């Protein structure tokens, strides 16, 4: 019996932290399993959930850590790296956070700083582990709108989420994991159904069309999931 659905395991494999037992990882048709950790980090940026590190780093220093994959073992960030970090700060509109202490800013601000750190790697693919977890409503939408902008800039994004609504709002496609494998995959409106949510989460959900167009795709109508809480 599978106790885990595998999102994080899959992410570790994508990032090369965990060797896949079988199968292929390819970028533009090239086998990625032959690349070093540093080479993978130059292509794939990983954004964990916001957390508090043990040291009160300044935000700019946290962001500059993203340049590590491009530096030699004993090298420290130079002018070129600082310029890249400053450009990323402007692109995410977080200049007001630049000199603050990372441990003292809000959860949503931390998440934006972690996105900035990943962007300084100059990746082509971003892997995000539940980027909106533990954020309040406003910060969830702030972070999601930035993710949407990054996709429009041409980055590929793989994002774990526990909110089907977010998949309706921002994703181009969805994978549902269950019992150690893919339960369903495809366009959000085809894959996220009342039946599939019942199978995945064990709860009754009604999916409603809002009549509002999606930011991600103007031709798509946003849907929302309403839990049906029957008293028993």
């Amino acid at each position: 019996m599978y106790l885990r659905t595998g999102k994080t395991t899959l992410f570790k494999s994508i990032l090369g932290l965990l060797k896949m037992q079988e199968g292929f990882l390819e970028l533009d048709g090239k086998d990625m399993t032959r690349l070093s950790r540093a080479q993978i980090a130059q292509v794939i940026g990983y954004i964990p959930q916001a957390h508090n590190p043990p040291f009160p780093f300044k935000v700019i220093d946290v962001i500059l850590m993203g340049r590590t994959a491009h530096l030699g073992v004993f090298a420290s960030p130079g002018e070129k790296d600082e310029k890249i970090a400053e450009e990323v700060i402007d692109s995410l509109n977080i200049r007001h956070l630049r000199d603050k202490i990372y441990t003292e800013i809000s959860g949503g601000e931390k998440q934006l700083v972690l996105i900035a750190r990943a962007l300084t790697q100059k990746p082509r693919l971003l892997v995000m582990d539940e980027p909106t977890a533990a954020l309040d409503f406003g910060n969830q939408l702030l972070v999601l709108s930035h993710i949407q902008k990054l996709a429009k800039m041409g980055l590929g994004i793989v994002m774990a989420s526990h909110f089907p609504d977010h998949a309706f709002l921002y994703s181009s496609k969805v994978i549902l994991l269950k019992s150690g494998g893919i339960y369903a995959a495809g366009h959000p409106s085809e894959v996220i159904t009342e039946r599939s949510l019942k199978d995945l989460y064990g709860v009754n959900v009604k999916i409603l069309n809002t009549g509002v167009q999606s930011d991600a795709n103007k031709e798509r109508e946003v849907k929302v999931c309403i839990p049906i809480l029957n008293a028993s």
Partner: protein
Amino acid sequence: MKFEVRNGTCGYGKNTVLKAVSLTVEAGEVLCILGQGRRLFLNQFWDS
């Protein structure tokens, strides 16, 4: 940019967590992965 996992099976040691996963992400796409058990994952792996 085209990133692809083909028939990926992954896990820890001899334990398989996910079997036969295939996915493709191209530039400009957002792929969302949904599924049960996220806290279990995070506590067990990332925070350990």
